[in-house]
């Protein structure tokens, strides 16, 4: 397809599309109207010509369309200086990707964006394994931890984590993935130079440098309210599946779910307490048939991705927060019947003494016994380290050291002084 299109055509296409996006009060439904009945590589140029000649098909107009807007569009077409617009994007380091490009990811999408603005590593679009991790901005501590560990786990398996750079679940998932130096794509609702929300400024820039930042709004566009649901369709379109970590009964994450269903993407949800309002939406999804997932393993299993990622040669589908240690990772702390071969893992990576008992499965070694005691304590939910100190009767120094060793090997999650088992 690309072979038959000349550079000049391509340039004209991008200019036509950018001018459409710059029209006042433009929205996805209005831009679809501009393209109505037009197909092929010159659709955008033809759409602009048709608007200039005032020959838009009235029967395809979106409901409630005000024809004064069309007059304003035509006026804008005459005064728009596309050279300035293009120079501005180039100056900001923002690239423009059009459907004529062979890297265009929305070829089969029912509602593709007019243009995709991008900054960062564009090759990430070509990776086949990408999962969206989304959820409420008003998440609980549990939700944040789950999102973070999910991000880490997926990154550890080499899976690209897509999210919306919002506060709460979105940001936590990206932070987890980037802490593991994994591939990330941030899909934003504003122009790529308009950071929103301000609280995630560092994350925004980190995603742009370490991964890929994309959006359908040209530079300078504010994140208007309608842009967020529109953005959610891009998240769904770019991913192979959508995981909702926490969502209230109504929320933006559920609109991402609707878009994913429309695009035949599997929808996964993390179960939460039925007493937690922040899990009302996700639990509702599960009732309606979404796939329950507890962590990155379940996600990878659901999407049947290849289990080991390119940057983790030793990793197997094990626990989600395993460090690349010298030994094979361990299964999650399921119980005392774990396979022997894995027992040497934490000892060689973690502690020089104390629980170096190697392959013995019998908890007569004091280190081993302590390990079992800690794992048993966290089995019923997160606990504060004070409780572990009291339960073990050890000095805090010894206990904290053991907890750290277990955290390093991924058998415990430590958030502040709160210790829980991996999800």
């Amino acid at each position, binding site marked *: 397809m690309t072979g038959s299109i000349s550079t000049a055509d391509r340039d004209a296409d991008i200019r036509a599309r950018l001018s459409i996006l710059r029209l006042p009060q433009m929205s996805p439904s209005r831009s679809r109207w501009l393209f109505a009945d037009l197909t092929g590589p010159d659709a955008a140029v033809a759409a602009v010509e048709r608007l200039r000649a005032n020959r838009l098909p009235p029967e395809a107009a979106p409901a409630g369309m005000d024809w004064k807007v069309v007059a304003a569009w035509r006026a804008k077409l005459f005064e728009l200086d596309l050279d300035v617009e293009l120079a501005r994007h180039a100056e900001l380091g923002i690239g423009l990707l059009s459907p004529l490009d062979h890297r265009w990811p929305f070829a089969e999408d029912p509602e593709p964006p007019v243009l995709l603005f991008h900054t960062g590593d564009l090759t990430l679009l070509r990776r086949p394994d990408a999962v969206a991790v989304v959820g409420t901005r008003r998440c609980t501590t549990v939700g944040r931890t789950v999102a973070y560990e999910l991000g880490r786990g997926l990154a550890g398996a080499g899976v690209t984590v897509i999210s919306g750079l919002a506060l709460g679940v979105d940001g936590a998932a990206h932070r987890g993935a980037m802490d593991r130096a994994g591939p990330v794509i941030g899909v934003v609702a504003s122009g790529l130079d308009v950071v929103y929300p301000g609280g995630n400024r560092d994350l925004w820039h980190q995603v742009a440098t370490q991964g890929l930042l994309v959006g359908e709004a040209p530079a300078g566009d504010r994140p208007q309210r309608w842009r967020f649901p529109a953005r959610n369709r891009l998240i769904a379109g770019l991913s192979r599946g959508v995981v909702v970590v926490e969502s209230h009964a109504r929320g933006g994450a559920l609109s991402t779910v609707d878009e994913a269903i429309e695009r035949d993407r599997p929808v996964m949800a993390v179960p939460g307490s039925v007493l937690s309002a922040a899990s009302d939406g996700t639990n509702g999804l599960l009732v309606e048939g979404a796939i329950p997932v507890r962590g990155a393993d379940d996600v990878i299993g659901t999407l049947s991705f290849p289990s080991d990622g390119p940057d983790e040669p030793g990793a197997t589908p094990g626990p989600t927060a395993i460090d690349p240690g010298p030994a094979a990772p361990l299964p999650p702390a399921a119980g005392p019947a774990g396979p022997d071969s894995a027992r040497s893992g934490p000892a060689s990576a973690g502690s020089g003494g104390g629980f170096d008992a190697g392959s013995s499965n019998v908890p007569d070694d004091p280190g081993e016994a302590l390990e079992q005691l800690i794992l048993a304590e966290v089995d019923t939910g997160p606990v504060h380290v004070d409780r572990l100190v009291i339960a073990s009767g050890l000095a805090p120094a010894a206990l904290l050291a053991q907890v750290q060793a277990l955290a390093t090997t991924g058998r415990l999650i*430590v958030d502040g002084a709160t210790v829980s088992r991996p999800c």
Partner: protein
Amino acid sequence: MLATVASAVVQGVDGHPISVEVHVSSGLPGYTLVGLPDVSCRESRDRVRAAVLSSGYRWPSRRVTINLAPTGLRKQGAALDLPIALGIMAASGQLPEAALRRYGAVGELGLDGSIRSVPALVSLADALDAEELLIPADGAVEAAVVRPGAVRPVCDLASLLRALAGDDELPAPLTPPAGGQLAGGPGGELADVRGQPTARWALEVAAAGGHHLLMIGPPGAGKTMLASRLVGLLPPLDRERALATTRVHSAAGLPIPEGGLVRHPPFRAPHHGASVVALVGGGTAAMRPGEISCADNGVLFLDELGEFPVPVLDALRQPLEEGVVRVSRAARAVTLPARFQLVAAMNPCPCGEGGGDGLCRCSEPARARYARRLSGPLLDRFDLRIDVRPPAPEVLLSGSQEETTAVVAARVAGARARAAARGVRANAELRPDRLDQVAPLSSAATDHLRAELRRGTLTGRGLHRIRTVALTIADLQGVEGPLPVEVVQAALGLRSRPRSVLGAAA
């Protein structure tokens, strides 16, 4: 006639000798005070006049000119009342001029002729350029600490003038009280803290290594109670530091304990409404020391750290780095001591319930705003960061006994002795370049830290602090040689980074 009396003024914590020159001459009755006096100093005229008359002496109905030399230095406060009164008495011939020659004086006068104490007597006595000092009896002990055997405590102008004229005996010079036993430790008893073993141990490590400590926890978790226990664990001040701290406290007008020396590490807990000036000092012409200087050689406790205005918190950064605070105003600059140990407490979020448990009622932006108060550089200074939770009720009711302050303080003293052998007061003062030499890592510990760095849970900056804390833990446990991995892991456990509060990176 002319008379000169030695006196002193204070700026910051340093005294400066001045001489009060009084000239009484014929001419229209009048009173002129020159030499950069401020308003409170200028008011001395009315106090001195009333005090002289109340004491039964005459006020010269002639031209009185008073010069405070050197004239370039701003004079502030009422401490010059007494030398001015003495100078006028001598210059008007009511007191033999020779009688004043060996004395320097400071003190405020009451209208009835009583002599009242003034702030900063330690610094003033130190600076007074005279053989013997006439010091208000209220604060004479402070002055006697720096000028033993030279301080004569005086109570009222009438008897002082009589004694100077030779009609009476001057009060005998004060000798500073002998060291003696320290009366009970400051702060509370550590044994009262029950069911929070990690926090207790963090306090011990903080005391042993001089590490700054941040406690995060919901209201009622006992953060303030814990913080007040820290000073009791610190070793008492040696004479040199006690003197330095006493000087600051005296300059700030804080009460000085009996015996005239501040011998326990001070504990200062300014409210979060405190202004920058209240914290770093320099509010008045005397450049009064602020709270951080008052906490010199002791503990500065900032409760509700998240409620302090950002400029106030940022003002702490330079003193934390350098151990002194330089306060500059248009006309003058002073350097105040500020070598304090910072202990801070904060809630996990504005509503205070964000630690876990899902009880938090804060919106995400509110939490983000709250966490942003703590700039990264400030957060970096806290070597120890712990999550504090209220102890479980069954532990409180069990009646189990915890170690007392005295037992823990003994271990702390042992660890401090090992730090002293390295040439620092506490491990927190060790420079990064010396760490390799005094605290080498075992190979297992190196592996563990490398893994943490790779995992992204530790930054390069954090690495140095972790090693310092690990060294302190080793000191407390009496571990010799390269730092074993358990000690490093324990240090990591004391550098908690709850994601819900501090974001992901730390």
